[in-house]
């Protein structure tokens, strides 16, 4: 089969099947949605919130909302973009509540892992986290999705509803800024 058809079948058919399952009111769909989106969404939420704990809480809220809004998701033009938008809204809701002081403060914890065996693992993880946390959130989410979830600019642009050029420029500016922030590691 042609490679492009492979991509289309990989990316589109599962969403169509998920939407059909949602329309059938099949409770097993929750697990299918988890398998398809949980990893990407958790990474995205960690990029937005810079906290694994918060990202997990928001992910739970997102899944409950997905279930409650399943009739809308079943008819959504792009299921993936819809799910990402829900995740983004929930993340910003948490940030807003936190700014108003209505929830507990963010837990300072590591959300980036450097595999054991590397002697500088903890220090490197902390430096990378600090550098990423210093980036503006739009640049950080693009870098995380590109580097850690292997998404293309086109895929990210579709998920976030932005143009590929915007995504590419955010990535470029983010990397340039990281070059400054991580100058000591490079040298």
């Amino acid at each position, binding site marked *: 089969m042609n490679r492009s058809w492979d991509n289309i079948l990989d990316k589109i058919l599962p969403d169509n099947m998920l939407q059909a399952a949602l329309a059938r009111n099949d*409770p097993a769909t*929750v697990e299918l949605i988890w398998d398809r989106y949980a990893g990407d969404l*958790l990474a995205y939420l960690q990029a937005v919130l810079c906290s694994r704990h918060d990202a997990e809480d928001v*992910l739970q809220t997102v899944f409950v909302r997905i*279930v409650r809004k399943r009739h809308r998701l079943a008819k959504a033009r792009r299921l993936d973009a819809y799910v990402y938008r829900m995740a983004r809204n929930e993340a910003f809701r948490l940030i807003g509540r936190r700014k108003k002081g209505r929830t507990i403060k963010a837990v300072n914890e590591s959300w980036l892992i450097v595999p054991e065996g590397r002697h500088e693992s903890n220090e490197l993880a902390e430096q*990378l986290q600090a550098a990423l946390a210093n980036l503006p959130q739009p640049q950080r989410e693009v870098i995380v999705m590109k*580097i850690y979830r292997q998404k293309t600019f086109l895929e990210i642009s579709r998920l976030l509803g932005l143009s590929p050029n915007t995504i590419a420029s955010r990535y470029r500016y983010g*990397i340039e800024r*990281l*070059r400054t922030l991580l100058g000591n590691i490079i040298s």
Partner: protein
Amino acid sequence: MNENTENKQIEDILRKAHLPEPSSELKERITAEAAKAWKQTSLELPWQIPVRRLLVSAAAAVFVIWLANSSSDYSLARWQPRRLQVEHQQFANLDTLTEIPYSPIVRQMVSTGRSSSITDASVLRSYAETMRNILDEAQQNGVSKPPAPVEGRSRLFPTQPGFNSYS
């Protein structure tokens, strides 16, 4: 050093780390919560959504109109201390109305008009015929000059040279 090479280095450094995948405990917790939410919410049929929106819109429109009416009544209440009494006044006796010009003719026309109920073409035709006869008769007999208007009062009909102008 070349900018692209430096960017490549940054990407390589970033790739040394990774983001952890969701744990199985997290999956259990979240799918259990989602399953609970699934049971609590029944799936709405697609047609129910626009119908419900329509009902809500209609109810909101009725409420707004009711509110506007209430507000209008309330704000105008002070200028309307009591309802206007509409009195239906009838001419009790045409003979007593001396100021009506051409009183014999008018009396005859009015009595003819009251007695006939115009419901179809034949009745209308006979009514018109009767009226024409009355007017012809009045013209042949010579119309008596109408009484001079009383000072400060108006007449029902303006002074006309005769009924010819209406025919």
